[in-house]
C-alpha cells in the first residue's frame, strides 16, 4: 500500500480574473520508507501540494489517497483523525504551541486521539529521547534553541504510528549545521518505514531524498534520482 498517492490533482484559487492555478494535473506516488523532495521556484505550488497531501485543504480536482484512504471520501473529523494518526507535519517556523512543554507538544496528537496523558507522555518522552532531547522534555518552546524546537516539531510529527511525514522548508529557519541535523533525522525516520515529502529550496538538502520532484507553474516539470548526497562522500572509493 502506498503511503501517499496524488492522481491528477489540480488546485485553483479565486474566480474569474483573479483565478490562480496553483497545481495543474499533478500525480505523485510515495512509497513507505521513501523520502521525496519537492523543489521549485516561489509560487510553483510546492506548499500547496504539501497541504493538499496533508488534508489541510482540498484539491479542486483529482484524488488524494493517504495510507489507502481517499481524502475526498472523508469527513472533516475523519481527516482530523487521519492527521492525528497517520500524517505528521513539520513547518519552517516550528509551530510549537507556546503554552505546552516540549513533551506536551509532542504528546498532543496522541492525547487528541484519546490516548491518556500518562501513556501519551511516555511515548513523547521516548520520541524526544530518540532525537536527543530527553533532557529538554519539561522546557517550554521559548526556552529552546531553534534547532531544538525543530527537533521537537519532528518528534511531534513522528510520534505514534505515523505513515507520512510532510515537511515544509523544515530547515528554512535554521543555520546550516542544524539544517543538516534536521534532514538527517528526517532521513532516519523514513528509513524506519515512514514515507517522507520535503519541500525545500536547497539542492544540498534535497540531495538527502530518494527522489526529487521539480514543480514549475503548478506542473511537475521533472523527476530525478537525487544527486549523490553528503553520505556518498563517506563511501570509500567514491569519486565525482
Amino acid at each position: 500500500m502506498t503511503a501517499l498517492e496524488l492522481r491528477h490533482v489540480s488546485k485553483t484559487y479565486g474566480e474569474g480574473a483573479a483565478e490562480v492555478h496553483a497545481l495543474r494535473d499533478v500525480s505523485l506516488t510515495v512509497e513507505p520508507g521513501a523520502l521525496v523532495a519537492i523543489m521549485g521556484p516561489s509560487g510553483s505550488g510546492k506548499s500547496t501540494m504539501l497541504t493538499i497531501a496533508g488534508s489541510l485543504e482540498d484539491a479542486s480536482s483529482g484524488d488524494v489517497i493517504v495510507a489507502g484512504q481517499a481524502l475526498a471520501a472523508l469527513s472533516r473529523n475523519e481527516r482530523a483523525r487521519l492527521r492525528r494518526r497517520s500524517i505528521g507535519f513539520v513547518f519552517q517556523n516550528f509551530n510549537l504551541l507556546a503554552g505546552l512543554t516540549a513533551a506536551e507538544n509532542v504528546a498532543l496528537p496522541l492525547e487528541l486521539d484519546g490516548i491518556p496523558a500518562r501513556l501519551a507522555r511516555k511515548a513523547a518522552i521516548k520520541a524526544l529521547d530518540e532525537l536527543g532531547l530527553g533532557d529538554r522534555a519539561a522546557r517550554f518552546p521559548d526556552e529552546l534553541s531553534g534547532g531544538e524546537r525543530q527537533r521537537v516539531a519532528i518528534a511531534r510529527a513522528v510520534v505514534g504510528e505515523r505513515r507520512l511525514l510532510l515537511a515544509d522548508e523544515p530547515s528554512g529557519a535554521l543555520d546550516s549545521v542544524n539544517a543538516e541535523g534536521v534532514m538527517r533525522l528526517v532521513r532516519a525516520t523514513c528509513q524506519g518505514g515512514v514515507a517522507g515529502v520535503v519541500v525545500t529550496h536547497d539542492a544540498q538538502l534535497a540531495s538527502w531524498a530518494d527522489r526529487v520532484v521539480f514543480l514549475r507553474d503548478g506542473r511537475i516539470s521533472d523527476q530525478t534520482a537525487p544527486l549523490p548526497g553528503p553520505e556518498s562522500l563517506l563511501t570509500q572509493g567514491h569519486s565525482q
Partner: protein
Amino acid sequence: MSTAVQDRPASAGSPSGGAPARRAVVRWAWRLFRREWRQQLTVIGLLTLAVAAAVVAIAFAADGPSSPSAQFGSANDLLTISGSASQQAADVAVARARFGRIEVIEHATSPIPGSINTVDVRAQQPAGLYSSPMLRLDAGHYPAAGQVAVTSSVAAIYRLRIGSVWHEGGRALRVVGIVENPGDLQDQFALVAPGQLGRADHLAVLFNATDRQVRSASLPAGAELQTRQPYAVGFPPAAVLVFDTIALLFIGLIAVAGFTVLAQRRLRALGMLQAVGATDRHVRLVLIANGAVVGIIAAVTGAVAALVGWAAFVPRLETIVEHRIATFSLPWWEVAAAVVMTVVTAVAAAWWPARAAAHVPVVAALSGRPATPKQGRRPAALGGALLAIGLAGIALSHRGKTPPLIIGGLVFTAAGVLLLGPIAIGGLAVVGRRAPLAIRLALRDLARYRARSGAALAAISLVSGIVAAIAISAAAAAQNETPAGEAGWTNLPANQLMVYLSPGGSFALPGILPQLSASRLHRLEGVVAEFGHTLHSQDVIPLAAAESANPPVFQINQVSGLPTTTLAGEVTGTDGRKGLMPVAQLYVATPTLLRFYGIAPTAIGAGTDIITSRSGLSGTKILDFGVSKLKCKSTSCAAHSGSDSGGRAPNRRDLATPVIQKLGLAKYASAPNTLLTSHAMTALALHPVLAGWLIQTPKALTAAQITRADHWAAANGVTVETTSHSAQVGLQSVSDWGIAIGALAVLAVLAMTVGLIRSETAGDLRVLSATGASGGTRRLLTGATAAALALLGAVLGTAAAYVGIIAWNRGLHSLTAVPVAKLAMLIVGLPLLALAAAWLLAGREPPAIAQQPLE
C-alpha cells in the same frame, strides 16, 4: 525510530478523542490564559464591572426601598383612629374584639418653633407585640414616667442631649435616650412611656387579620385601614429585572468582542492545533474553556467586589434611603444566579467566535489570515425584524409587568442592534470616501472588519443607550413634574429655602401676613440677607404678595393677620353647597422675581392677569378677600358664597375669568409658581406687601444647614421651608453618575476594540510607515477608528433609547424635554474624547499585536 504507543486504549478510537483530548485542549487553554491574562484584563475588567453592577442592583433592590416595617412593624394591618379620647377608646375596644391581639401606639403632635414641620410625640412599648422593629435604642435607655427619648434630629432641633430637660406641651420631660425608627430614619419623634402622652391626636393600632376579617370589617367613622404590601412600594421588581438583563447583555456583547480579539490572536495556534489532528470541536473548546475561565474570574471577582463595596457603602446608603440596612441580609440565591448567569453568558459569548475560528481554513489560520468577510443583506433584514420584535416586546410588557416580555424585548432589541450595527459602519465608510487618507483608511478598515467590530459597536451602543435613556428619563421626569396638590412633585428644589412672614408657610392658604411695623420689616430684611450670606447664597429674592386696600383681619390657627390674594377654584362641599377653595398662593411678578426666572417683562401679554408654570388652572378665580366669608378648618379655608349671589360672595372684588399665561416659572409646589401681573394688580386695585424671601444656594442644603435654618427662623419669628428629602438631588446625581460611568465603559470597550482592529491591520500601519507616513498619520488612523465607533455607538444607542422609551411608555411624552446638553456630550463629546485618547495613546504598536501563542 519507533515511538508507537504501547497499550493503546480501545477508547482511543473515538472520532474526537474523548476525555483525554478534551483534557489536553482545556489544559492548553488554561496555560494560554495564564500566559496571556494581561491581554484579557480589559475584558475581565469590563465583565467584572457588569457583574458587580448586577449584584449591587440585586442588593439594592432587596434592601434599598423603604420597608413597610417602618410603619407596620411585624404586623400586617394598621388601623389609624382619630377623634375624641372616648371615641378612640371605644374604637380600640371594637378593634380588639374584632381582630384579637392588637398593639396600640399613641401619637400627638408638637410644633417646631420657626418651622412648618412638627415632631411626633408617641407612646409606644419598646418591646411591643408588633412594633419592636419600629424602634431602636441608639444611646441611653428607654423612657419611664416623666422621661423622654428622642431621635437625633429632634435632639438637634431642640438642642437636647441625654440628661437635659425638654419642655413640651407645658410639662418638663427629662431626656434619657436617643432612639430611631430603623425603617425610617426621617421619622422625627419623641418617645414617652405608654400612658404618659396625655391626649393623643390619633392612635395607630397594629394587628394581624385575615383577608376575610379585613374585608368584612366595618371601620369606625374616621378610621383608616392599611394593609401591608407584599413588597416595598416604589421599587418595581421589573426595574432590577431590566437592569440585570441589560447587565447580562453587556456581559455577552463585551465577551463576544473580547473573545473575537482573542480568537484572532490565537488563529495561528488554532491552525496548528488543527494541523496536528484537532477537530472543530477541539478548536471551539479552546476558546470556550477560555470563556469559562474569564467568566468565572469576572463573576467571582465582581461578586466579591460588589459585596465588599456594598458593605462599605451601606452606612452612606442608609442616610440616602433613610432606613437601616442589614448589610448581608441579601437574596443569596439571586446573587448566586447572577454569578452563574455571568459564567454561562461568557461561555455562550465565546461560542460564536469559537465557531468562526473553527471554520477558518487550516492553511489560512496557519498563516494568520482571518477569513474573508462575507457580504450579505440577510443580516439587515434579520436585524430589522429582531429590532421590531424586541420593541414590540417592550411595548407589550406593560412597563415591565410581564417579565418574559421585557427580558425578551431587551434581548431582541440588542440582537437587532448587533446585526444592524455593521450596516451603519458600512454607511459611515461610504460617507467618508472623500475624507483625508488616515480617516478614509480607518473607516474602510472598520467596514472591512465590520463583523468583528459589530459586537463592540453593539456593546458601545448598549452603554450609550443606557446613558441616553437615563438622561432622557431624567429630563422627562423633570418636565412632567406636576404642581402642588398633584402627585409626584416635591415642594422645593434641594438648593432653595423659603422664608415666610406667615407662620403657616405655603401650606396655609390663604397666606395670613402678620401685621409688622416698617422698622421690624426693615430689620428682617437685613437678617435674611445675612443668613443668605452664611449659606453662600447669591440670590435672596424678596417675595411680594398682594393685598386689598383695606383687608379685614383674619384669625386662622391662632394666627391673626391680613389675608393675601390667592387663586381659588370652585368646589362643592359635603353639604352640597358650592364654594371656592384656594388652590395657589399668588405672588406679585416683581422685576426682581422675573429676572430671577429669566423672564423678560415683554414676554408677558398686555392683558395677562396671571403667569404660571402650572396647568389645570382654567376656571379659577382671583380672591382678594376684601369682604369674603371664610370658614376655616385646620390649615385650609373655603370661601362660602352667599345664597343670594349665585356662587359669589357679595361685594367681593374677585376676577372671575383671569387671563392666564403659561411661562417658565418654578415647577415646585412651594416656590413662586403663579404670579400676578401688573395688569391684574391695577385692575383689582391691589398693592404689593412683603411676604417672604426665596433663598437659592449654590449647592443642595445639608441636614445641618436645614436644622440651623429652623433655629434661625425660630429666633427671628419667621418660618422656613426646605425640601423634605433629596429625591431631586438623587435623580440628578444618578443621571450625572450614569453618564460618567457610561462614558468610561464606552472608552474601555473602545480601547479593547480599537486594539483588535488595529492589530488586524498592523501590516497596513507598517506599510504606511514605510511609505513615509508620519506618527501623526498613524495616530489619526487609530483616533479616527475610535471616534467613528464612538460616534456610531452613541447615535445608535440614543436612537434605540428613544425608540425603547417610546415603546415602554407607549407614548411620545419623552420627546417633550430633550436633554440637549447631555445628549450633545454623548454624541459629540464622547467621540472627541475617544479621538483624543486614541491620539495620545496610539504612539506605538501594542506588544500583544506581535505576540502569537506559537513558537
